[in-house]
C-alpha cells in the first residue's frame, strides 16, 4: 500500500496527528510519500470562486498523477474538496479543459485517474478490521469513547459512493471498538463542529461546538475521537475558551483516531504526540 500523503494547511497546527498517522502507517506497512509540490486543497477559495478552487484542487491531483500515486488525506475538508474535484473531472470533459487551461500557466495538466481517500477510511477498508485487531498490544478496556465523524468525512455522500451512512454512521465506532474501548452513542452525533464559520462569527461557532461537547459529556464519554484537524481545533484547542464563554466544564480529551489506535498498538504516548493535545489525556494514559 503506497499513497501520496496530502497534509493540507490545518495539519500545520496538529503535528501530533501527523506523528500518529506516520507511526501507525509504518507499523501497518502503508507507505506514505511526501510530495513537495502539494499546496492548499482549494476549499477556502470555493466561496470566492468555484472554478479557481477547482483549479487549485486539480493542480494537487496533477502532482499526484505525475508521481503515479493515489492520495491519502488526513483532513476531512481536503478529502471532500479533492474527491469532488477528482470525480467531477472524471466525467466532465468541458470542466477539465477549463481547469487545464489554468494549470497550463504552471506547466501542469490533469488527465484523471487519481483517487483520494481519507487515512481513516484506508484503515477501515484497505487495512481492514482483522489486520488492525492483530496489531493490538494493549486493549483500551474501560475507556468510553465518543466518535465525532465530522461533516466532510462522509458528506456530500454522493462523492463517497456508499462509504458508511451519513445520518447513522458506524465505521469510526467500529474502529474504536477494535482498540478494546467502548464506543459511546450520544445525541446529535452528526452535528457539525462549526469550524467553517470560526472566522466569520466566533461566538456562534463556539456555541455550536459547546452543544456537542455538552451532548458528549452527558453521554458519559471519557474522551472524543475524530479524524479532522479543524474539528480538533474546535473541540481541543478551543475547549477552554468554550468552557469560559459558556460557563461550562468538560475536561474532555480529544484524540485523533490514529492516536487512539497508536496507544492500543503499544506506542509510547509521546511517540504519537499525546503530550501535544491541548486537553491533556493524563488520566486516560495513567489508566493504561
Amino acid at each position, binding site marked *: 500500500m503506497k499513497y501520496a500523503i496530502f497534509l493540507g494547511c490545518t495539519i500545520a497546527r496538529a503535528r501530533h496527528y*501527523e506523528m500518529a498517522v506516520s507511526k501507525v502507517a509504518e507499523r501497518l506497512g502503508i507507505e506514505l510519500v511526501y510530495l513537495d509540490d502539494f499546496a492548499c486543497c482549494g476549499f477556502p477559495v470555493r466561496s470566492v470562486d468555484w472554478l479557481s478552487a477547482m483549479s487549485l484542487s486539480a493542480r494537487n491531483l496533477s502532482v499526484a498523477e505525475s508521481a503515479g500515486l493515489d492520495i491519502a488525506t488526513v483532513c476531512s475538508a481536503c478529502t471532500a474538496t479533492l474527491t469532488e474535484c477528482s470525480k467531477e473531472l472524471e466525467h466532465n470533459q468541458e470542466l477539465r479543459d477549463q481547469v487545464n487551461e489554468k494549470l497550463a500557466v504552471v506547466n501542469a495538466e490533469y488527465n484523471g485517474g487519481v483517487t483520494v481517500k481519507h487515512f481513516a477510511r484506508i484503515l477501515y477498508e484497505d487495512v481492514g478490521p482483522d489486520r488492525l485487531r492483530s496489531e493490538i498490544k494493549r486493549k483500551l478496556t474501560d475507556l468510553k469513547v465518543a466518535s465525532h465523524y465530522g461533516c466532510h468525512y462522509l458528506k456530500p455522500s454522493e462523492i463517497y459512493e456508499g462509504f458508511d451512512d451519513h445520518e447513522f454512521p458506524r465505521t469510526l465506532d467500529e474502529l474504536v471498538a477494535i482498540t478494546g474501548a467502548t464506543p459511546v452513542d450520544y445525541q446529535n452525533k452528526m452535528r457539525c463542529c462549526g469550524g467553517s464559520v470560526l472566522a466569520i462569527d466566533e461566538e456562534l461557532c463556539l456555541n455550536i461546538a459547546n452543544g456537542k461537547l455538552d451532548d458528549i459529556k452527558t453521554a458519559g464519554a471519557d474522551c472524543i475521537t475524530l479524524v479532522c484537524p479543524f474539528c480538533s481545533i474546535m473541540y481541543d484547542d478551543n475547549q477552554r475558551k468554550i468552557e469560559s464563554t459558556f460557563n461550562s466544564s468538560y475536561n474532555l480529551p480529544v484524540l485523533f483516531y490514529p492516536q487512539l489506535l497508536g496507544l492500543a498498538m503499544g506506542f509510547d504516548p509521546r511517540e504519537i504526540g499525546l503530550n501535544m493535545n491541548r486537553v491533556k489525556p493524563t488520566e486516560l494514559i495513567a489508566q493504561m
Partner: protein
Amino acid sequence: MEDKAHIVVSKLDPKFKDEVANTPGGEHIKRCFFCGTCSAGCPVHELSDKYNPRKIIRMILLGMRDKVLSSDFVWLCSTCYTCRERCPQDVKLSDVMTAVRNIAVKEGHIHPAYLQQLNLISTQGKIYEIDEFDNRRRERAGLPPLPAKNEDAGSIIEATGLSRLLANRGGS
C-alpha cells in the same frame, strides 16, 4: 422597520434566480418548494436567526438581489451538507450558497476573512507558512521537512483573475 416588513416590488430583480441557476452550484435553486427541511436541520440556524436557509432561498427566488448579495448571512453557512443530504428536491443548498457567495464576490462583497485566506494562499500556497522553526520541530518529531511555500497556487489565482480582489482589497 418598514424596510424589514415590506418588499418593494419595483426593486426586485426577477432574473436573480436565473443568475444563481447559471452559476456553478446554483443549478437546482428553482426546485425548492419551501418545505423547510434545510432550516430544520441547520446547526447554524438552530442557534441563530441571522441565518435561515429557507428564507434565503425565498429571497433569491423573489429577486431580492442587492439585499442577499450585501448581507452578512451568506457567509454563515458552515458547509456541513446536512441540508444538501436531506432536501427532498435536491436543491443542494450548500452549493447554492457557494454560487451566491461567488456572485457576491463579483459584486465587491467579499467577507474579510475570505479575502485574508485568499491573500495567504496567493502568497504562500497555503494558509499557514512553514518556517525553519517548524521544520526543526518536525525533525525532532521524526517528520520530514516541508517546503516553506508553494508559488504555483499564486500563479493559478493570478490566471483565474482572482488577484484583482487582492489588488483593490475587494469591496466588503
